[in-house]
């Protein structure tokens, strides 16, 4: 009796240990013949893992899901496994997947991750695939250039987030203005007048969060400044401290932020607003103007009255016209089993005119897909003046940019000191990631 109990115990313990080890194992089904859609698919099917940050509750999300399903059903040789992961957690999940050797084949992503992912050496070189595609000339040249590192195309443009000045026309008229400001000085001058005549603040900014560096890089570009310049050795450096003129200009950018605050052009709380507060308050007609993307149009469905008077113009500038152009990339990754050909077929579908017209009509990276509405053509008209982040690891740099804004607006540090601090922080970050030029 005891002997059989012993055996039973041994079996139980073994099962538990095996279950534990099985739980720790990877769930790698890549490259295997999949049994899903078995009645439709051929014997050898390549399964593509596709991570998307689509919003399943939105019309756009439903359209994407439908189109991907149609592609999946139209191809006997490809099975697309769509996984919806929000942008909030996508980055960390991707990094974990890279390190576990279990990256998806293709995913949505943000432009801010481009330099990091390239440094991880996880991105596929798509140059030959793209160059041999008959539709390659349909894409904006500066967009493709910004996704190219050392002559190699390392990502594809999923959609564009070009920023423009959005303004409530009625509010400006109420304050006695027929047109939005063209320059920083005009904006600062209009701020107190709009506040006095309408009771609303004139302008909105994101002082914190992921959008604040995107706005800061635009204002820096309007002063003809870049965060990190590529030097002769191929590496990067922030040169503001080496060049007094650049440092003065950078200080003027932080002075502009302080002026927005001190003149009441922006609400005091805007110094720590994230993108949610910025978008929501503009859509609710709580302030007059903001530099934002065409996605604001979607708020029109919830707040039709408040959004009815919204018009679009170029962002106010200082020395030269510039805007931030967010290029949301499609990343294709190196995986254990090479499925690049099949993944490229799927990527072509996502970049194709049919998909882009249905999903990204206002934000398409293709020159032949442009909406006639103001949310399309008025934004794409600014594409040529679009600036992007440099192709370096941005993790600490964007954090430093947010800190610099907080130092300027929360601690009220001198603009010159903030500019110097940011310049040093950028170079410290580049040094840590071995991207700092010795020049």
């Amino acid at each position, binding site marked *: 009796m005891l002997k059989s109990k012993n055996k039973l115990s041994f079996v139980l313990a073994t099962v538990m240990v095996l279950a*534990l080890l099985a739980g720790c194992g990877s769930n790698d089904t890549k490259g295997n013949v999949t049994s899903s859609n078995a009645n439709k698919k051929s014997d050898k099917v390549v399964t593509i893992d596709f991570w998307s940050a689509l919003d399943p509750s939105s019309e756009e999300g439903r359209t994407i899901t439908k189109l991907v399903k149609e592609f999946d059903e139209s191809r006997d040789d490809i099975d697309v496994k769509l996984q919806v992961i929000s942008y909030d957690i996508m980055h960390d999940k991707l*990094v974990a997947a890279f390190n576990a050797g279990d990256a998806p084949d293709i995913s949505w992503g943000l432009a801010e991750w481009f330099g990091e992912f390239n440094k991880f050496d996880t991105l596929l070189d798509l140059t030959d695939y793209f160059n041999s595609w008959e539709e390659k000339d349909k894409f904006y040249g500066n967009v493709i250039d910004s996704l190219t590192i050392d002559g190699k195309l390392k990502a594809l443009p999923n959609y564009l987030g070009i920023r423009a000045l959005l303004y409530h026309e009625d509010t400006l008229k109420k304050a006695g203005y027929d047109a939005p400001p063209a320059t920083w000085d005009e904006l600062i001058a209009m701020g107190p007048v709009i506040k006095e005549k309408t009771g609303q603040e004139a302008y909105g900014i994101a002082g914190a969060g992921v959008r604040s560096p995107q706005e800061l890089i635009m204002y820096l570009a309007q002063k003809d400044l870049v965060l990190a310049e590529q030097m002769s050795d191929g590496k990067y450096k922030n040169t503001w401290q080496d060049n007094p003129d650049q440092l003065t200009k950078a200080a003027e950018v932080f002075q502009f932020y302080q002026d927005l605050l001190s003149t009441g052009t922006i609400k005091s709380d805007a110094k720590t607003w994230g993108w949610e507060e910025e978008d929501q308050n503009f859509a609710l007609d709580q302030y007059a103007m903001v530099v934002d993307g065409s996605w604001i149009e979607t708020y029109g469905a919830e707040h039709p009255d408040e959004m009815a008077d919204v018009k679009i113009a170029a962002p106010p500038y200082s020395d030269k016209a510039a805007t931030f152009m967010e290029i949301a990339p499609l990343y294709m990754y190196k995986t254990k089993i090479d499925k690049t050909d099949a993944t490229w077929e799927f990527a072509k579908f996502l970049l194709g005119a049919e998909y882009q017209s249905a999903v990204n009509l206002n934000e398409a990276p293709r020159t032949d897909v442009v909406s006639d509405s103001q949310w399309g053509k008025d934004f794409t008209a600014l594409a040529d003046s679009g600036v992007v982040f440099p192709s370096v690891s941005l993790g600490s740099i964007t954090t430093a940019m947010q800190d610099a804004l907080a130092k300027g607006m929360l601690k009220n540090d001198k603009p010159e000191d903030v500019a110097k601090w940011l310049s040093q922080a950028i170079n410290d970050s580049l040094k*840590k990631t071995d991207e700092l030029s010795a020049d």
Partner: protein
Amino acid sequence: MKTMSLRERKIRRIAYWYVLPALLFFILLNAYPLLNVLWDSFHFKNLLNKSLNGFAGIDNYKEVFANEYFWSSLRNTLIWTILSVTGEYILGLISAVALNQNVRGRTFFRALVIVPWVVPIVVAGLTWDWMLSPDYGIINYWLTSMGIIDKPYYWLGEMNTALLTITFVNIWRSFPFFTITLLAGLQSVSRDVLEAAAIDGAGVRTRFFKIVLPQLKTVSLTIIFVHIIWTAINFDFIWIMSEGGPLHSSETLPIMIYRYAMQEYNFGNASALASLMLGFMLSAFIIYYFYTSRKNRA
């Protein structure tokens, strides 16, 4: 020396087999990662700079100490932990004593008090975030309506209030755990002893401080210790509500570890800070252990 019988030896052997999965769990999920963190803390390990690798000595620790925000994060961790646990204990004790009284609707209130604790942290954090909003939040509306403040205040957006506000929300969420545990402790306090003390002339305050509270000592110390650990290493509440901002004013050491690991990919620095934090916690508990041991001996 007593020798084990054959049956006892067999039973012991079976016991070893049953312990094996737990042991494997411990080795795989606790011991190995912990040792790995300690090992990494003495090595260069930056995913964005693979050219720099090998033994780092104490360089990672030096970099952590030199970080502009290390000391403020350490101070924030202490403030966050001490205020949270103190607030939770005081509120938990008051509510436990109240719910231990024989009042109408006692069962209903006992069920009600648990609600904050069963709300998921993400939901609680986002809801409070919205309630504290200066533009649409109900808190600012109430405070301005009652004339307590002149105009809406951005509780999570100002450097001097962000950490304290999150601490308040954390107290709100965690005190029910103290309530329930202390309530269980209170119910084990002998009514006979309390009645005898009352007959001997002990007032309410004397009975509470001289009889009730000493009998809650063991359960109090247990939940306080557990909560010191849980609160000090808490990441999600602060991250959800402020991400450590504005300008690192609500950043604690776990948030800093996350930034090193997942924003800078500097696992050497992250491991050094994690090891330091482990060292701080261990030191505090060892000091407390020796202090109480000496006190007990005396």
